[in-house]
Each structure stands twice: as C-alpha cells, then as structure tokens.
C-alpha cells in the first residue's frame, strides 16, 4: 500500500487516470464522512482549486481547500488536523486515528470510523470499493434515523452522545426556521396604516405623500426553559442543555434555567460558542449543589426573581422527571402561578417514554392539574414533535 497510488474514484473525467484528482476526491470524501457539507459541486470546486494552486505547496493547498470546504467555525477548527491526517506522509495512520469527533457513521459498527476512511480505502483490496461511496451515505442516513429514535439514556459511547447532542442543537435551530417561515406566510408584506396615512396627507392637501406603515406584530414566542439537572435526571441533562443551547442561540427571546436544589440562569453560559467551555461553565455553576430535587422551591424562586418573563407570549417548557423531595403542595401552587401568567406550560418528562411508566410520583401528581401539555422527551424524535406545540 503505497501512498503515491491511491485508487482514482469514479467521478467525472477529471478523476480518471489522474492520481492527484483521485486523492483530492478521496480527501473530500473523508471530510464528508466527518460531517462537512461537501457534495459533488464541492468536489468539482476542490479539483479546480487544486489544479490552480497545485499540491507542491501544501500550505497553499491547505488554505485554499480550507476556505472552499469549511462553512463554520467548528469545521474551520477541525480542518487543519484532518488535512494533516490525510496529506502528511509520515505517521499517517497514527494521526488519522487520533482525530476526534467521530462522525455518525462511525457509531454504526459497520466498517471503519469515518476519519480513518481514506487510509482504509487505500489499504483495502481491489474488490469491495466500487459501491463504498454511496453505501456510506446511506449508512449515514439510517444511522441518523436510529439516533433520533434511541432513548438518550441508552447512548453509551462518547461519539454517539456528542453526535446526538449536536443533533439536538440543530433541531432547535430548525424549529426556529420553521416557526419563522410560518410567521412569514401569515404576514403578507408591509401593510399601509390607512388612518395614519390619511391623517398625514392633510398637510399636503390630501395627497398621501408620506405613507404610514403598520408595525409588524411580533409572533415568535418567548421561550423559557426550566431544566431539572438533578441526579435522577443525569442521564438526560446534557442533551437538554445542548437542546437549550440551540434554542437560546436560535431564538432571540429565549431564557434557560437549570435547577435541582437551587435555580440558576444558564442562558449566558449556554451562549458560549465552544461546547467544551460551556460544559466547564455549567459545571462551575452547579458546584456545591447537594442532593435531592426541590422543584417547587426552584419554581418559587423563578416566579419571584424572573416572573417578569411570563406573559401572553411566553411558552414555558419544564423538563423534569418529577421526582421532588420538596412539598408537593408548593410545587402545585407555583406551577399554577406560572400557568396563570404564561401562554402555555409544557412539561417534558423523559420517563414517559419508558414502557410501563405511570406518572405516580407525588410531585407529578400535584403538577398534572396545572400543565397544558405533558409529553415525553426521551429521544430526538419526541423533541422534534414539540415544535407545533410552541406556537399554539
């Protein structure tokens, strides 16, 4: 297996019999497996760019391909390592395997993890390669589907968890896009404010020189997320925090709080662009918390300290399993307060997805009377189903 002769792939005339083109395509393919947005158009562009700058000067090739193939900070930060892994002749295998952020396909257990793909391909025999490209893509789609249906607590390996967290974040952003589109269809362009226009026209002898416009109504809901991060929820907390991060990033008017014995606003921490640093910040916030969950007290704290967030536009989403060590009456009372003032109160309970679960916990019983929607949230699919509820 010599590095100089990778197998050219079957993509257009450029690639045929041209080892350089083959390697470029192979590299783009590897990036795609690592979650980069790179399609056929990008492959052709990469070929054109490579032909333009040549591959003798690796720095230029790196800079050119980086600008061409990256489309966000995350990809930008990962690119150099992936580039080195693929293009540097020495120690290639070791480097490639050190690449973090294994793509979704890697978790399937079928075939090699995406990052190592280019190498494996070169090492593989002649026979099995022809269908590998398209097969990989299909694998990715079904793997994604699988992840969407898997209960969060059953995701064990790190890569799968990260992938799922990332999906949760994307989901939140997609929700906003949908909600916005809906709003746009409802509102047909700018509307003239007739009364005011005519009034203003008086000073011009009745000619409506200055048009007055109706103000556009703000229809996106204000979202308040209250996340239970107690020990009984620990298997789920990180996903909801990532989901909350997506929500906070996508909606201008979203506010997130985490609680178990205390209530802490976490919107600021969630806005940190680096997910690792966000983890650290959240860890600091939750330092020194003792065991137990005081949902009622935490909500009371919310009502007294942040009650101004509640209003006719506010949708409150409470995520908790309902295991409360405080008094159930307090919980009921505080929930009623929220329910009275907000447009909608949604309780997401990840346990609801489990076979045979009945909401018998005392806290849960006290709560049921005051919530508009009691829904499960144990996997991405059930989170996605939440979208229409936000605009009710």
């Amino acid at each position, binding site marked *: 297996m010599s590095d100089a002769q990778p197998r050219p792939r079957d993509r257009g005339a450029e690639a045929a019999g041209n080892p350089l083109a083959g390697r470029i395509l192979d590299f783009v393919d590897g990036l795609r497996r690592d979650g980069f947005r790179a*399609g056929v158009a990008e492959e052709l562009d990469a070929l054109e760019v490579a032909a333009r700058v040549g591959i003798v000067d690796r720095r230029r090739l790196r800079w050119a391909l*980086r*600008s061409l193939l990256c*489309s966000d900070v995350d990809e*930008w930060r990962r690119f150099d390592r992936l580039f080195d892994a693929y293009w540097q002749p020495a120690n290639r295998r070791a480097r490639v395997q050190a690449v973090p952020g294994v793509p979704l396909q890697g978790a399937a257990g079928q075939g090699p993890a995406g990052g190592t793909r280019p190498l494996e391909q070169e090492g593989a025999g002649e026979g099995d390669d022809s269908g590998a490209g398209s097969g990989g893509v299909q694998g990715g789609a079904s793997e994604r589907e699988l992840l969407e249906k898997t209960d969060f607590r059953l995701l064990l390996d790190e890569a799968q968890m990260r992938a799922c967290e990332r999906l949760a974040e994307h989901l939140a*952003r997609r929700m906003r896009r949908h909600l916005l589109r809906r709003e746009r269809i409802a509102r047909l362009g700018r509307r003239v404010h007739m009364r005011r226009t005519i009034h203003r026209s008086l000073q011009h002898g009745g*000619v409506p020189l200055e048009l007055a416009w109706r103000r556009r109504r703000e229809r996106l809901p204000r979202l308040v997320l209250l996340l239970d991060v107690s020990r009984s929820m620990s298997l789920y907390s990180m996903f909801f925090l990532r989901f909350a991060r997506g929500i906070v990033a996508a909606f201008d008017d979203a506010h997130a709080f985490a609680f178990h014995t205390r209530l802490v606003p976490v919107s600021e921490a969630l806005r940190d662009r680096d997910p690792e640093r966000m983890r650290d910040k959240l860890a600091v916030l939750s330092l020194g918390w003792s065991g137990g969950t005081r949902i009622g007290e935490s909500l009371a704290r919310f009502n007294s300290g942040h009650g101004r967030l509640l209003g006719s536009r506010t949708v409150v989403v409470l995520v908790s399993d309902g295991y409360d060590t405080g008094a159930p009456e307090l919980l009921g009372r505080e929930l009623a307060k929220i329910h009275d003032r907000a447009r909608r109160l949604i309780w997401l309970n990840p346990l609801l997805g489990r076979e045979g679960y009945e909401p018998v916990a005392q806290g849960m019983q006290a709560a049921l009377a005051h919530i508009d929607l009691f829904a499960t949230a144990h996997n991405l699919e059930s989170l996605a189903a939440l979208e229409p509820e936000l605009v009710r």
Partner: protein
Amino acid sequence: MDDIGQLQKRLEDAGYVAEPDLAATLLLFTQLRRPLLLEGEAGVGKTEIAKALARAFDTRLIRLQCYEGLDASAAVYEWNYQRQLLAIKIQESEAHSAEEKEEHIFSEPFLLRRPLLEAITQPDPPVLLVDEIDRADEEFEAYLLEVLSDFQISIPELGTVEASSVPYVVLTSNATRELSDALLRRCLYYYVDYPSVEKELRIVSARLPEVGQRLAGQVVAFVHALRELDLRKKPGIAETLDWVAALLRVKVSDLTERPEWVAQSLVCLLKTREDRAAVTDEVVERLVARLP
C-alpha cells in the same frame, strides 16, 4: 508563493495587515469570483478586510448593512413615491395620455437604487460588502443568493437589469445564527480570529504612529490578557485603538507608572456593566503587574 506575497503587499499599502493564509484566501476569492463569507467575533476587523480590498483594487466599496426585517425595497431598489406623486400633480394639467404619464413616473429618474442594484450596475467591478448577513432573515438570504448566482435583478416596471460588472462580494457574519446551507455552499469561508500580538502591534503603530514602542507593547499585551478573561463582550481592535488614543491624550507613556489610569480608562475597552464589574481593581493590578 509570490502572488500571495504581492497581494499581502498591496493590502499593506492599503493599510491592512493580512496574514498569508488570509491573503491566499483573498487571492482565491478574486480568481474564483465566488462570494467570501468572513465570520468571527464582533470587533476582529471583518469589515476592515472588505474596505482594504476596495482600496487595494482601487474600486468602489458598496455597503449593505443587514438588519432584521431588511427587505427588497431597502436592499435592491424602491420607487421614489413622493417624487412620483409630485410628478402626477404637476402633470395633472398637461395633455398627456395615461400611458405616457405612467411611463414617465416609472422611469429611471424615479428609481432609488439601493446597494444591490447599485453594485451590479457599476462600470467597474466594485466590492459589495454585505455586512452582518446573520442579522437579516432567511427570506432575504434566499433572495441574495438568487441575485448572487444570476447577477440580474428584475424590476417589473422597467424589465430585467443585467449586471454590467460582477462585483466582488464579501459577506460578514457574527455567527449569531446559522446561515442557510445553500448560501454556505456558495461562499468561500474564512474565520477571522482576534489578531495575534504581533499583528495587533503592527495595526496600532500603523494607525497611531505617535505611540511609543513601550506603550504599544503594553497596551496590546493588556488587551490580549483581557481577552483571555471570561468576558461577555471582548474588546476588539477598534477598542484597542480607542484606548491608545485616550491614553495618548492624557499623555500616558507607560501603563505601569500610573496603574490608576488603567482602571479609569477601562471604559474604552469594556462596554457592558457585567464586564466592568468582573474586571475589578485587583484584576487590573494583577494584569498590569504582568506587563512587559
């Protein structure tokens, strides 16, 4: 490597210090004629790159500032209603047919050109800066994409306006929201980070030549240390320059001599109340003590 070096030189003559990888991207940008998306925190000098490009190519810079609710009438063109109404009033007594009158008021003199239309009707390719595209909504993004791929704009009353020259399109984004896949795929991408110490030093001495070596070094080191802290709004290059200007005005030439000046002039660097509260006098003292 030479053409990259040349471009770097040209940009430097235009007053911008560009790293070789940025210059390489800009070179590719001028060759491929694809839009370039510059992403990065506020204050890292994204807009400045577009301005420097315009200066370096000696061409016009046309800027479209995006905001939520930006629509075609603010970005592309609008009819000058007031003028049209006046024209109708004036023509009332004249004996033109209704068609003639209509043709008259929907002609070029009544057209208000907004940046996009302006940019594609220039004799020489200008630099079109679409600033903070992430603030505009998705609808506008889709429209922009259409213009950027066809380079023609259709005005129902006038017909289709074809581009007389294809502008160099630079988009900037603070990444406050995710842009559409279609747009991302169309664009070259460059992530603009805060400048390195060397680069910022060169910027400071280029913009404010009267600053001494010592003060410049201290200021840049201090600002870099501040950026390391966990702040809500990290000071950008503009803030650094403001601060230097302020320090020069009160004739400070060495930060360690007058640490109290540092604390008092921090308003130039820290723009939110939380950040002011986070950077206490003790923090300032500690940072000043570490200065060269």
